[in-house]
Structures are given as C-alpha cells and as structure tokens.
C-alpha cells in the first residue's frame, strides 16, 4: 500500500501541474507535490525498516534493500530540484519569455519524468521497468528542447533517437528474457516478475540469458551514458535547463544502472558471474577513461560536468562489475553520493551560468566576488565531485580502488589514471571560475536557489563521515543480493 | 514414347505460343495505359513479314553475324525442352540441370553480344556493353535464386526440384519469398522490360536490347525477335515452375494433360497481367541505377539462401 501511495502522490501531480502549473503557483505546487512524495517515501522507508522487503499489488510492485536506497535518493533529489527550479526558472522564463503554456508543459513533463523514475524503481515487472524507462526518455525530450533553440532541438533529437534505439535494444533483451522465462515459468503473466525470476534464475537457459543480458546492457547502458554510446549525454545536459541537467544526472543515470543491476542478478544465476562482471568492468573502465580525456577538451562548463557524470557512472558500473560484496557496497555508495553531489553541481553551476549569461568556462570568472554564497556553493560542490575527503565520493572511490587492488590489481593503474586526468581537467578550471574579479555588469543571483546545494552537500558529508546505521544495513543487504 | 511426344509438344508449344504471349502482354499494357491495342496476333504478322523480306548483311561483318540468330534461336529452343513446363521427368530433363540452363542462357547472350560487336557500329557496341553490365549482375542473382530452390529439394535438376516443390503444401517458404522477389527482378532485367530497359523505344540514350539488333533485317531479325519472345516465355515458365508448380503433370501421363494445360494457361495469363501492371506502374530507371536494381536482386537471392539455412525452409 505504501508503495502505491508514493506512486499515486507523484502521478497526481502530473495532471495538476498540466492544468495549473504556471506562474508562481506552479513552482510552489511543484515543490509541494515533491515534498509530499518525499514524505510518502520516508513512510515507505520506515515500513521497509520494520518489515523488510515486500511486494504489493499481486506482486507487481516490490521494494527491497536495493531499491529503497535509490528511492530515497530520488525523493531527495526530486525535492531539491523542485526547490532549485523555482528561482532558476523564474529568471529563465523572463529571459526566454516563455509562454504560460510552455511553463505548464515544463512542470508537467518534469513531474512525469520523476514519476516514471519512481515507477521504474518500484515495479517488480521487468517489462514495466522498460516501459518506465522509455516514458522517462519521452518526457525529457521536450524538456531538453524547452527553449526552442537550434542547439536544444539538435540535442533533443539526438537524445530521442539514440536513447530510443538504445531502449529498443533493451526491449529486445526483455523479450528474450521472457522467452527464457517461459521455458521455466510457463506462458504466464507473472513470468516477467523479478521476484519470480530470481527464484528460478538457476534454471534459465544460459545461451538465451547471455544474449538477453548483452542487449539490455547495451540498451540501458545507452541511458547510463556508457562509452561508446554516450553521444547524447553531453548535448542533452548542456542544452536543456540546468534543473533538467541536474535531474538527468542525478536520477536518470542511476535508474538506468539500477535496471542493469536487476538483470545482472538474474544472469549471474544462469551463467558464471564472471560473464556479466567482465562486461560491466570493461564498459566501466572504457567510459571512465574516455570521459576523463574528453573532460580535458571541454570549453562549455555544463558539458564538462556532463562528461564528469559519464566518468562517475563508469566508475560505479566498474565497481558492480568487480562483484565482491565490498565493491558492490562501494558502487552503491558511489551512485548515491554522485547523485546528490552532481545535482548540487548543476544547481550551483546553473545559477552561475544564468547570471553570467554564458556557458563558456573562460567567461565565468570571480564567482566568489560576485556572490560569496554562490562561489562557495560552486567550489564545494565541484571539490566534492572530484572526491575531496569529507564527501561520500571520496569514501566510495577509496573503497572501489582498494577492492580493485584485491581482485583485479592490474586494472588499478587505469582507474587511477582516469581519476587523475579528471582531477587535472576540472580543478584548474574551478580556480579560474571561482577566484578573480567578477565581470562587470552582472547581478548577483538570488540566494534561495542555492539552498538545496548546501542541503544535499551536507548529506554527502554525512555519507562520507558517518553513514547512518540503517543505510549501511540496507546497502550491505543490497550488496549481498547483487553478489548472489 | 508418350514422354517423347510430350517433349516435342512442349517445345513446339513454347515456340509457337511465345509470340502470342508477347502480343498479349503488349495488348494488356496498351489497355492499361489507355491506348488501343494492336491485337494479340500482331507479333505473328510481324514475324511473317520479316521472314519474307530479304536479309542484308552489314558491310564488314563476319560469319558470326550470320550465325548468331540461328545459334540464339537454337539455344532457346533447347532450353524449352529442359524446363518442366507441361510435365516433369521429360526425356531431355537429365541432359542439363539449373546450372547448365543458366549456361545455356549465357551462351545465347554471348552470341548476341559478339554479333553486335561484330558490326562495329557505335550503337550496337554500346548495347553490347550495357547488356553485359546488366547480365554480369543478373546471372549471379538468377543462380542464387535457383540455388535456394535446389537447396530446398536437395537437387540441382530442375525436374526434381519442381516435382519436390509440387508435393509440398506451402511452396512459398520464407526463403522462396525472397527468391521469388529476386527472380522477378531478374526476369524484368533479362528480358529488357521496364524498369531496366524499354522494349518499345529506340532511344539511343537508354536502349540496351534493341541497340544490338539495329543492324539486323529480314529472317535474321525475325529469328532474333522470336528468340527474345521465347526467352520471355521461358523465364515466366521457370518462375511458374519454381513458385507456382501446382498442377504440373508427371512424365508420360497423358490423362493429366488437360488439367495441366488449363492451369498453365491461367498461370500465363496471370503472369502477363502482373507483368503488364508492373511495367505500367514503374518508371524506367536511369541506366546507372540499373546495377543498383540488379544488386538488390542479387542480395535478395542471397538472403533467400541465408534464411533457408536459418529457418530450414
């Protein structure tokens, strides 16, 4: 019941925002709805804390240790984005003179996106998981091209076509999964339920499962932004509103990786875990390195951090590929901290870009002088995303590197190289952006949009210094689940 | 004995009904294009007229020029004996399998091309070159198609293939769908039909087949034209044998002949209608698009082969 409550809270927002989601009331309503959703999620988390994992709705919906952690993050980032969106969009609406209809579209589509993300995390049906992922793609296409600029349209088109094709591959994988499941579970409407599949996973035909996994990895991997399928990601992040970039990086990539993990659990039953592990490690390292070297060439600040998202998702994928409980734990921690930090980065950088009026790194100068609040927000968020010590990212990266040393020591240099190059690519530019004299004739941004940055960053510090006991429990269970 | 009679009957039937089929096709096309047809029998009148005219030999041509019309006509008549049209298992059938059949067609083509080049006129040479361009692509496509059918029946003998296909209830296997499409495209190209060539015009920019005949006259021309008409009927007959084989008689069974003949007439009439409508609906391709057309046919033939291995049917 509490699962349905979360989904209903989120879904009800769509028609509300589509009808009345403009002007001041739209932004406030958007925040209100997501606050409500977060409350429902907290209730759900408490229930999971007491009763453990459970399913409802004839087994169609499921929450377990893996999904509850990600659902919590989705709730927090969703609310943070709604908060940020209020002050950010108020200025964008004036700048682009967006019509009331367009603002309603923005809010309704954004809420649809958040709802599909929650649905993807909470469904037990692998088919519905696909449907939700596709729904997320569709709802964000129009968000990316919200301003109707040539660049935005191009990015949205690329996003739509690449992710559409990618997801088509994932659907093919899902069909193959059902094909394999049919042999064991029979021609049954419940043959795609993950919990059912998990109980019979050792009996699934390995050949079919191998191909199914490859298709789903390629398909959902496109959405994770794994190299070489990452072309859409920097464009979509750069061209859309910053609130959308934050939600894409903070939620969509995570949920896509979550989908791959669900499949991995099933495949590891049918095949040697090395099969899926090697694939994930390969894609992970490749993405990490490609993204790291791409970062060096970027001149656009939002593209820079979009590539950083690819890098971090590559790292998390790699961690799950290693497959030991410790590595899986680290991967999960990395997903969570990256989600919180990267959305904070896009909030703060988005504000800076909006004030300066350009995304070019060279033109963004003296943020500390312009507004100390914004300057500190950018500085902390970027330092955290680079893995500076008090953040959760430091902890997770440390754990990932140490478990690599234990299991695949020869890969460690590649990891360190990727991380080092990223640091070298971002850190000097951060100095340029934050210090120095502020450009003339630029107004300081409003403070209210920065609040979620600090809230989320403090959560990341909590993750890095003292992980709450319940969270550790959940993540350990999830890691064991992934380990098989 | 009856088998030999049927063999002779088949060759004569093909040879003497070929002008009728070509005439029917022309009449149908005319009707479909809102023109008044010249009647189905016009081709006979043309041939009759040509046979009674003097045939001239172009200056500076060799014996090849004179010999080619007979060679071509003979090759097609022989082919008419090999293909199972009226019945399977005819006496001549073991003489050649599908590969030899394609070779026979190639032989006729070589005669035609050599004779055209022998005249030394630019148009004929041009036509010869174009003919070889098309043929070089059409032949592998034809072979791929025939191989698909022979894989299905595990024999390259046309008679065995047809006998086997007739027994299967669903002769349109997936692989045969591809083969049929490819074969139809080859048929259009090999017989100088639209969209590859237009048999009704003498436009020097586009003509292929007609260009090679420019220097011929009298009975030589008559034999060449007749040969081309027989060739068209043979291709249609192969198509019918491979893709619509129902109702064909086993060798030596005279009792089955009435049914076979009726079925055959219906199938040929349907083929004429199909060809006429395709030729009316399609526009002629520019010459340099023709290789593209043939390449498509070849690739379809290959897919036919592939899906046979994949689907086993």
């Amino acid at each position, binding site marked *: 019941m509490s699962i349905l409550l979360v989904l209903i809270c989120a879904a009800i927002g769509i028609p509300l925002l589509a009808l009345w989601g403009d002007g001041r009331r739209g932004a406030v309503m958007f925040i209100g709805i997501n606050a409500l959703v977060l409350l429902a999620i907290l209730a759900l988390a408490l229930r999971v804390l007491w009763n453990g994992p459970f399913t409802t709705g004839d087994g169609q919906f499921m929450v377990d240790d893996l999904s509850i952690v990600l659902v919590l993050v989705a709730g927090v980032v969703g609310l943070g984005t709604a908060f940020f969106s209020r002050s950010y969009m108020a200025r964008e609406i004036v700048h682009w003179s967006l019509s009331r209809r367009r603002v309603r579209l923005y809010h309704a589509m954004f809420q649809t996106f958040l709802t599909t993300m929650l649905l993807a995390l909470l469904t037990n049906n692998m088919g519905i998981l*696909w449907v939700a992922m596709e729904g997320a793609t569709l709802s964000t296409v129009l968000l990316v091209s919200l301003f109707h600029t040539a*660049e935005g349209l191009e990015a949205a088109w690329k996003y739509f076509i690449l992710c559409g094709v990618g997801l*088509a591959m994932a659907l093919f994988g899902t069909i193959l999964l059902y094909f394999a499941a049919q042999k064991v579970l029979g021609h049954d409407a419940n043959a795609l339920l993950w919990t059912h599949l998990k109980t019979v996973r050792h009996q699934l035909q390995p*050949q079919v499962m191998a191909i199914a996994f490859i298709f789903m990895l390629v398909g959902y991997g496109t959405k994770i932004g794994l190299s070489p399928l990452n072309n859409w990601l920097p464009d979509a992040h750069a061209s859309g509103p910053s609130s959308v970039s934050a939600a894409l990086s903070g939620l969509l990539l995570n949920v896509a990786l979550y989908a791959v993990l669900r499949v991995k659990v099933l495949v590891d039953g049918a095949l040697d875990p090395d099969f899926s592990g090697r694939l994930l490690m390969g894609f992970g390292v490749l993405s990490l390195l490609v993204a790291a070297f791409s970062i060096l060439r970027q001149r656009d600040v939002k593209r820079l951090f979009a590539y950083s998202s690819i890098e971090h998702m590559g790292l998390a994928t790699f961690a799950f590929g290693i497959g030991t409980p410790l590595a899986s734990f680290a991967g999960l921690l990395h997903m969570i901290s990256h989600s919180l930090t990267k959305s904070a980065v896009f909030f703060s950088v988005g504000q800076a870009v909006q004030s300066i009026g350009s995304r070019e790194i060279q033109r963004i100068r003296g943020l500390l002088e312009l507004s100390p609040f914004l300057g500190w927000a950018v500085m902390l968020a970027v330092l955290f995303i680079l893995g500076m010590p008090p953040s959760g990212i430091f902890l997770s990266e440390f754990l990932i590197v140490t478990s690599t040393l234990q299991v695949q020591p020869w890969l460690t240099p590649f990891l360190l190289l990727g991380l080092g190059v990223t640091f070298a690519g971002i850190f000097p530019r951060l100095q340029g952006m934050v210090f120095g004299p502020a450009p003339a004739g630029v107004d300081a941004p409003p403070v209210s949009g920065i609040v979620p940055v600090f809230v989320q960053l403090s959560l990341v510090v909590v993750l890095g210094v003292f992980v709450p006991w319940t969270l550790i429990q959940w993540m350990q269970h999830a890691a064991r689940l992934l380990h098989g | 004995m009856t088998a030999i009679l049927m063999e002779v009957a088949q060759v004569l039937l093909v040879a003497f009904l070929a002008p009728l089929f070509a005439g029917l096709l022309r009449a149908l096309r005319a009707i479909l294009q809102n023109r008044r047809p010249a009647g189905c029998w016009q081709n006979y009148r043309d041939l009759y007229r040509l046979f009674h005219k003097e045939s001239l030999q172009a200056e500076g041509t060799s014996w090849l020029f004179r010999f080619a019309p007979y060679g071509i006509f003979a090759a097609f008549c022989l082919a008419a004996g090999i293909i199972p049209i009226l019945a399977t298992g005819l006496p001549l059938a073991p003489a050649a399998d599908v590969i030899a059949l394609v070779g026979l067609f190639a032989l006729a083509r070589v005669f035609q091309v050599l004779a055209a080049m022998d005249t030394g006129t630019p148009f004929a040479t041009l036509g010869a070159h174009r003919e070889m361009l098309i043929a070089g692509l059409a032949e592998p496509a034809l072979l791929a198609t025939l191989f698909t059918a022979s894989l299905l029946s595990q024999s390259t003998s046309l008679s065995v293939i047809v006998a086997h296909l007739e027994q299967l209830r669903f002769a349109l296997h997936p692989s045969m769908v591809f083969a049929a499409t490819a074969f139809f495209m080859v048929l259009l190209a090999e017989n100088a039909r639209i969209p590859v060539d237009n048999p009704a015009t003498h436009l020097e920019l586009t003509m292929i087949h007609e260009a090679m005949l420019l220097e011929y006259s009298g009975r030589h021309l008559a034999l060449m034209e007749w040969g081309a008409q027989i060739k068209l009927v043979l291709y249609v007959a192969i198509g019918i044998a491979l893709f619509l084989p129902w109702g064909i008689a086993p060798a030596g069974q005279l009792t089955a002949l009435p049914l076979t003949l009726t079925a055959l007439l219906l199938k040929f009439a349907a083929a004429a209608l199909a060809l006429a409508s395709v030729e009316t609906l399609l526009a002629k391709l520019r010459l340099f698009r023709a290789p593209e057309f043939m390449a498509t046919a070849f690739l379809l033939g290959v897919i036919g082969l*592939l899906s046979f291995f*994949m689907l086993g049917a």
Partner: protein
Amino acid sequence: MTIAAQGLTWGIPLLRLLAALLLLLAFAMLAQRRLLTLIHLLAWQGVVLAAGTALVALLTGQAELWFSATLTLALKAILIPMVLHRLLRRLQVRGDVEAVLNIPVTLLAGIALVIFAFSLAAPISALTGTVTRGMVGIALAAVLLAFLMMITRHKAISQVVGFLAIDNGLFFAATSATLGMPMVVELGVALDALIGFVILGIFFFQMRETFDSMDLRHLERIREE
C-alpha cells in the same frame, strides 16, 4: 501456451512466411529513396505485423492477442502512416530521400547485419522446438536493418520511419517468438509508442519553426571541440 496439432501443419509455415515478408519489407525500405513509398512500406509492415499477431491469436486461442492485433492494425497500419503522410504534405518536405551511403553498399551492409543476426540467434533457435524456430533471428534482423536505415538517412521523417520499423521488428519478436508478452507489458509498450509518436509530431513542428527545413544536416552544429 501451446499450439493445437492441426495448427502446426499450416499455421507455422504461414507464420514463417509472414516473418519473411517482414524482413523483405525491411530490405525494401533500406533500398527505397522516396519518402512517400517509405511510408507505404511501413504501413505494409504494420499489416504483416497485425496478420502475424492475429495468426498467433488464432493458433493459441489467446483472446487478448486479438485485441493486440486489432490495435496493431489500427495504429501501425492505418493511423501512424496516415499521420506521417499528412505531416509530409503539411511540412512540404520534398519527395526525395538522399542516402548517405549509396544503396548497394547499404544493402551489402544489410546482408552483413542479417548474417550477424542469424548467427547471433542461432543458439537460441537450436534450443527451441519447431514452433518458433528462426523467428528471433528474423525479428532481430528486421530490427537491425531498420537501425541501419536510420543511420544512413538525413531526413527527420525517414529516421522516424526507421524508428517505427524497429518497433515493428520488436513487436514481431514479442508475438511470434514468445507467443505474446504479458498484457500489461504490451499495453505499456503500445502506450509508449503512441506517446513517442505524439511527441515527435510536436517536435517536427518545433524543428520546422526553427530551421524552416526537415533536413537533419541543419542539426550538426554541436561538435566536439
């Protein structure tokens, strides 16, 4: 779900025939330069798909597949091609499609993809009985061919046609290889396809408004520095 014995003798060959037709249409699309014909081919693919679904419904006696077949016929064979047709006229896109590669090379690449798809699906077909043998391979080949078409085309509409053709291939895999996915999933997938199509429509008009053209070569401004 099993197929009645008398269905095996004629139903399965017919289903295979439809599969071959689907692949044939996918090839025809790859070789086609004209947008209008492309849309017609897409509609025919929809018809084949609906016929396949109806056949499976008949063979297995699943009532919901009849519903699915009707929906497919209405959406993929009639509604979507009609809308595309109208879009083509309203946006006044010129008739020709240019291919990036020339057609024979594209077709050769297509053959390579078909071989790849067949060999990839070979272990799966080896496992299954006679019923659905080869269907996975053909459906995968159709999907990959549509994918190839998308890559080699410039015009937005032909890319969308490719996208929808991918969808057709997937649906065919779902109905003929697995004899129908669970109803919830099929409905969800159909809903997504419909929404995606509507969004594309909106998108086309945005594009038209901004670029005055439907040629995707205008969309090559973002480049890696």
